[in-house]
């Protein structure tokens, strides 16, 4: 692919979240002239508002996710705060049974886990209490700092000659003979040889401008952060319905619980608001880590996240447009981003992923999707439920 001068790039990526920035970095590493267009600031959406977990054993990208994370600081040249391994604590038999899936899925792919009894959990997790039923120690997965990782992708991409244009909104596309030849934005038109749409909740609407249907619904979810506590030997501890971690600074950063479906058009100033749900998250965190019950919650945040009807990612080159790649990670994007970005690079450059079978992530699986899928699944914003 050729490099071009002026207002354009060989590859234009719409969306400066982890997925788009990782893809841009992978492409720039190959010397591909790459431009990322982001409506707000890098990672302003869900990419900068998640638990930082890196253990997606159900995904075809899992092996690559696990291979890459321990290498990322060195590959990027900037810190991600990646920490390996994970403990998941069950407070009752039901949770213990539910959480076993990670052990089974990991084992099938050659990754080791151990079952922990309550005493072992308490030895490994000093903040755990007498209410532990059992747990799992996974010798895979882990967590990283989303903010730092995002900035690391952006800077590493720049170091390889890629460009990131923030506060620039994609408005439409110029097409010729089934090809996208330019992206119209709030800062002018950028010519391109290939276009990647990785725009989170906006992905569906942007794709529809090209006649490609990406069925998506978006929702709001919330997290909380406490003041720093003494570091546990392993920060990757969650369970009791929560995801999250103790950060390297010592804060407990956890989320979980119910989501709220929203209409993307209703988002005010791009800002997701948190709600009293933060108290319900606090309750479950004080059950998970009772010895931290005195810790003070000093912040909360919310984010908007998109989901496909079956909750699985789309990483695909739809046949309707010759030079288009679509990527939505369907509410689980941060952890797999090193692998997802590499997969997107492969799709852009060669049309197929060189390291994983992505056949379960194509748009074609929705060919027979019922038009009333949102209603059938109860994925409706409150205003719609109330008949407003």
């Amino acid at each position, binding site marked *: 692919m050729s490099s071009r001068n002026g207002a354009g790039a060989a590859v234009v990526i719409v969306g400066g979240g982890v997925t788009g920035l990782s893809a841009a970095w992978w492409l720039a590493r190959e010397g591909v002239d790459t431009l990322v267009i982001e409506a707000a*600031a890098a990672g302003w959406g869900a990419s900068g508002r998640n638990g930082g977990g890196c253990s997606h054993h159900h995904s075809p990208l899992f092996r690559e996710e696990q291979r890459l994370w321990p290498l990322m600081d060195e590959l990027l040249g900037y810190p991600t705060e990646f920490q390996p391994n994970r403990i998941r604590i069950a407070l009752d038999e039901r949770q213990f049974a539910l959480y076993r899936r990670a052990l089974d899925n990991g084992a099938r792919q050659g990754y080791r886990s151990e079952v922990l009894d309550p005493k072992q959990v308490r030895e490994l997790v000093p903040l755990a209490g007498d209410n532990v039923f059992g747990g799992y120690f996974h010798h895979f997965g882990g967590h990283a700092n989303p903010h730092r990782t995002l900035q690391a992708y*952006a800077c*590493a991409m720049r170091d390889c000659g890629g460009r990131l244009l923030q506060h620039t909104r994609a408005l439409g596309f110029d097409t010729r003979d089934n090809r996208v030849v330019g992206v119209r934005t709030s800062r002018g038109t950028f010519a391109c040889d290939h276009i990647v749409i990785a725009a989170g909740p906006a992905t569906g609407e942007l794709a529809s401008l090209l006649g490609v249907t990406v069925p998506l619904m978006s929702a709001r979810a919330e997290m909380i952060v406490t003041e720093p506590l003494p570091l546990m030997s392993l920060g990757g501890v969650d369970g009791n319905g929560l995801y999250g971690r103790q950060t390297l600074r010592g804060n407990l950063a956890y989320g979980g619980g119910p989501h*709220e479906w929203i209409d993307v058009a209703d988002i005010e100033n791009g800002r997701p*608001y948190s709600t009293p749900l933060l108290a319900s998250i*606090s309750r479950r965190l004080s059950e998970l880590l009772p010895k931290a019950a005195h810790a003070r919650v000093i912040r909360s945040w919310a984010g908007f996240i998109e989901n496909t009807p079956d909750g699985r990612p789309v990483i695909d080159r739809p046949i309707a447009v010759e030079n288009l790649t679509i990527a939505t990670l369907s509410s689980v994007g941060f952890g797999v981003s090193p692998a997802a970005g590499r997969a997107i690079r492969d799709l852009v450059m060669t049309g197929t992923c060189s390291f994983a079978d992505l056949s379960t992530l194509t748009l074609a699986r929705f060919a027979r999707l*019922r038009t009333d*899928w949102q209603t059938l699944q109860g994925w409706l914003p409150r205003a719609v439920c109330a008949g407003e």
Partner: protein
Amino acid sequence: MKSHAPIGRDRASVAGKQPPIDEETDLLIIGAGPAGISAALTAAAGGGVRVTLVDENPVPLKTMGEEVPLHFGGRMAATVGNRNAVLESVLRARPQLEEAIEAGIDVRLGTAAWGLFPQRRTAGWIDGHVAGLADEDRAYLLRFKQVIVAAGCRDMGVAFDGWQRPGVMGASAAYRLTSIYQALDSRTAVLVGGGTEALQIGNALADAGIRIAAVIEQAEAISGPAELLSRLVASGTRVFTRHIIQQTVGDLQGVAAVRVAPIDGEGNRLSDSLERIECDTVLLGIAAIPAIELIEAVGCAVSFQPARGGHVAVIDGLQRSSLPFLYVAGDCAGVWPSKTLSDNTARREGRIAAMAALRALGAKHDDTQEAPIAPDQVAGDVALERLEWVRAMTLRSAVVPFVCQCEEVTAADVLQLNPPRYLQWRGDASESWRLGAVDPEGTPHPDVVKRLTRAGMGPCQGRRCREQIAALVALGSGRALADIPLATYRPPVRPLRLAQLAVLPEAAAMGEGWESWFGIPSQWIPFWRLEPPYSAAESSAEEPVSGE
């Protein structure tokens, strides 16, 4: 809905899980200073309206120790631990509270407001508007129809060598401890800043028997009223213009003295011969910052308004914010000299806000029109003065003080976006990783600085460093302070223990589907077991599923 298709149920959605809320009021007023009390009495006089007035004083000692809500600098006398004594002291200091109680107003002292949560289209699961409140033991929700925020102000921090020592505190924190708690542990203080607010507080403290040894001002002249300055001078206060505090000298109790240095008009230190001034307290009175955390966190339109002392809500002549249920009054609506010198302006703001709220409630109200409140025409440039303080005190400091004490972040760390110390990152950051490079198209955003350096992310919730960071970002990028975006505030705007929040009642259904992230079974089926395509007709699965 026109469609008659059956609506499926999403067990993992928050719909239908709203918490039980048994307390309700028509008008909630946050802050029982002059503006809040005046608003409450006005509203109660209308009759037939339920009025709830909350005030966080007395603040728990532990919270004060975290420099919340003000920078108390460890100068709380031991009596602060005696809650009953402090309560009595609060009531004595604000006799109108008795009047409010007699007027049938539901007065709740020791009650902090940590968030306002209106029902909105993207956060609509709780009906109506609710406020998150907390006393020492528990957090709870109160439903309200209208709210007046009269949350006062706090002090701008500025870093210098030794400002972490006990005894360095906000000027209004000292005033609060003196006037409401009768518990300021100080004998001799040095006042930093010569504006009206600082001099007013200096005089009040002098009246309370605290010796004000000196006033330090970086500018050429003292900008506050001459009469207030001469009262201080008459009591023995020395005045140092074009000076800054170079450092504090400490002993076991904290500050024992300060060394002051002369500067030139560019903020450069002129001489190494430093004068030593004995004192046990340093009062930071550089700027009174309107306390907008609740207002901003709920999404009111906010802008930098120099005549009102910085970022405040955008309001109309009826004290109405951009949100139809929220009014502001008192110092949190803006601080300016004549308002500082007399409570009358704050009281009038409270009355105007209460009348507007009564009108919105459809309640009986006095229809006499109060003239809208306008701030004084300011002579100086508030924004420039703040930049000059930060430049002279912090940037030109010989040592490298932590601007953010909680997270130990220096001015250089902010300007260079250095990763936090705990990472011990030895990588050679490239030019890509610089304040200007991270977001070259936009104005550098303190939220980005926060995310990368952790400045402002500690337990004091950025109260001591927020304005300094904005000033550093302005200085580092060569932009005007007014152009630097405001870092967002997030609930809880007071630090709350997990255990305190955990007792907030929740619906029995809250636990249903909690485990499941989005509750989509197919999301977690391992890829080797999947059988696409997917039509949604099969999605009635009720089997439990857990997320990752």
